[in-house]
């Protein structure tokens, strides 16, 4: 299979190499670096700049820039350029069918409006509940699955594949399944709780239960991911730790609680960060659930409110302001994580 992919890639690569040579600045840089070794006699202005850059950043700096500079600029423009631009738009009063915002009059009106908008406050609280609830529940289920699977069971691969299966489906698809699962008259969830004499419950229509119901559906989709991460973490723990705990006469529960779980801190952090990112993309799920911009009552999150304000109500500046709040929320999770990884020399 790899051979096929390699062949496919080999078939594709001549054209990509040709592209590389067409790129104007990429070509220039590589010519400089080719000239560089014999630049001792007369470096010329370009050679001198190259040498200065190399002595500042390291010997391969200019030569390696062919590989990363252009994609980096493209990425920086679309990610960081766009976020700064978005911040700017959020300070204008841009709305309606006008083609472009008017940047002459900047103020924080949109943020003040957000604080006075009960819909925004609700969406912010829901986002927070979704992030914490979904991440917590999914981590616990993933950890339990990983511990069960790690106990040397038979058919391990089959179980692992089944548990990971929902993750291969998109939000758009799983939303269809759960719409059917949560159906009031014919849904499986109501038939299951009906066995215990409960319900039926209008899962997506009742404000009190809609958010937990959505968290449950998302947990179904992503707990397999948490399981895989934890499984890798468990496999990295030396088996002497298990044996030592056994020799000490610790019960299985105690062994996991005292000895094993504390060693899974790294796995927990990395899984939690990725799960929070998934949760922030729950927009796709909520949109597909209703086929529109307005999620079920009680399940509006900042991601859906932002898109609705901007693209349905044409309140572009207000939407941008909500997006900045969402971005700040993401940053408060990601920032510490990146610092943590940087400190541990993982970057």
């Amino acid at each position: 299979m790899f051979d096929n992919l390699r062949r496919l890639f080999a078939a594709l690569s001549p054209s990509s190499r040709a592209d590389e040579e067409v790129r104007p600045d990429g070509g220039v840089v590589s010519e400089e670096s080719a000239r560089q070794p014999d630049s001792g006699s007369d470096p010329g202005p370009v050679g001198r700049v190259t040498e200065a850059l190399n002595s500042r950043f390291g010997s391969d700096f200019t030569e390696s820039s062919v590989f990363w500079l252009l994609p980096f600029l493209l990425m920086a423009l679309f990610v960081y350029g766009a976020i700064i631009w978005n911040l700017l738009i959020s300070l204008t009063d841009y709305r309606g069918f006008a083609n472009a915002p008017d940047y002459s009059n900047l103020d924080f009106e949109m943020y003040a409006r957000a604080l006075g908008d009960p819909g925004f406050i609700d969406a912010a609280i829901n986002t927070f509940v979704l992030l914490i609830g979904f991440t917590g529940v999914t981590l616990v289920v993933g950890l339990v699955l990983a511990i069960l699977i790690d106990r040397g069971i038979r058919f391990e691969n089959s179980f692992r594949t089944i548990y990971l299966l929902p993750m291969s489906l998109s939000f758009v698809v799983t939303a269809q399944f759960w719409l059917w699962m949560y159906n009031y008259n014919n849904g499986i969830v109501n038939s299951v709780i009906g066995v215990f004499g409960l319900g039926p419950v209008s899962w997506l229509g009742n404000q009190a239960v809609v958010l937990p119901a959505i968290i449950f559906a998302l947990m179904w989709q992503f707990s397999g991911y948490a399981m895989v991460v934890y499984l890798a973490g468990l496999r990295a723990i030396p088996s002497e730790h298990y044996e030592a705990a056994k020799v000490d006469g610790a019960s299985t529960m105690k062994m996991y609680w005292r000895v094993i779980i504390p060693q899974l801190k790294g796995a927990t952090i990395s899984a939690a960060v990725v799960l929070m990112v998934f949760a922030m993309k729950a927009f796709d799920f909520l949109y597909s659930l209703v086929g529109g911009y307005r999620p079920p009552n009680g399940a509006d999150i900042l991601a859906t409110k932002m898109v609705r304000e901007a693209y349905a109500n044409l309140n572009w500046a207000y939407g941008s302001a909500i997006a900045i709040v969402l971005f700040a929320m993401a940053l408060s999770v990601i920032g510490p994580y990146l610092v943590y990884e940087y400190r541990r020399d993982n970057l």
Partner: protein
Amino acid sequence: MSDTESRTDGDAAVTARIRQNLEQTTVEDVGLYVVLLVMAAFYLVPIESGLVTSFKTGTAVIETAPFAPPGPSGFTLAKWQAAVDALLRGMGNSLLYAVPATVISAVVGSLMAYGLTIPNWKQAYKAPLLAIIIAGIFIPYQAVLVPLTQFWSQWVELTSLLSFVWALGIPNDYAGIIELIVTHVAYGIPMCTLLFRTYYTNLSEEMIESARLDGASLRRVYRRIVLPLSGPMFAVVLIYQFTQIWNDLLFTLVLVATESSPAAPVVLILAGLGSSLEGQDFALRMAGAFLAALPTLAVYIFFGDEFAEGVAA
């Protein structure tokens, strides 16, 4: 049994643990397998229920249990037929941008990860650059949507820039497809770079260093040593990117806008499929959901093990 055997080629510790468990089959073990099977049912039931429902007639959907297969009188392929009719166009459109965007972002990610990992320049400058790139993975895309709309509608107007293409009779909605390719490549770069970087940091340094000492240029090292070794990681990245791009709804919603557009991708059509004023046609929805998931499910089933190793890395 083959499952157990294939596992035992791993480390000896796991083998020991397996053997220990096999020797003492107890009540506890029976409980373990019951829990595992119940959990397997939990993950499979929504999918199974969707599958059987997609083959049911309207009356069978109401009369039979949601997880029971349709009886001979309630069985129909009409919903699948309708789903194919509604979605086939969208699946073609999705392939039109998902395939190029996947291939380009994987190639670019590989080049970029190489440039930021193997060449010799100061870690003090590399690390912040990498942090900036990796942070790009975690951006909520809502934070870039309005500028993205501005960029493609005011700054780079493909509908007028490529007017010669539309003159050939191709609907100018297909500008949205090109926008999607560029957009997905730009936002896919961080993840592709990270995946390749993890892989390249574990490559043997000796081989590369000796090639460098022999005077090989960075280009040559990439083409002759790094690229031929990148096969397994290309598999992971291509699978990951294809799934992400095929499944993404947000960008298609913003850049292509309406499901009635000739360039509408499959996710956009699926989101509105089977709902009308009379209520929801669940059988049609389920058939559509399976159809839309088919390419990614196929990729997952054929390459699932590589994918599992990739996400664990």
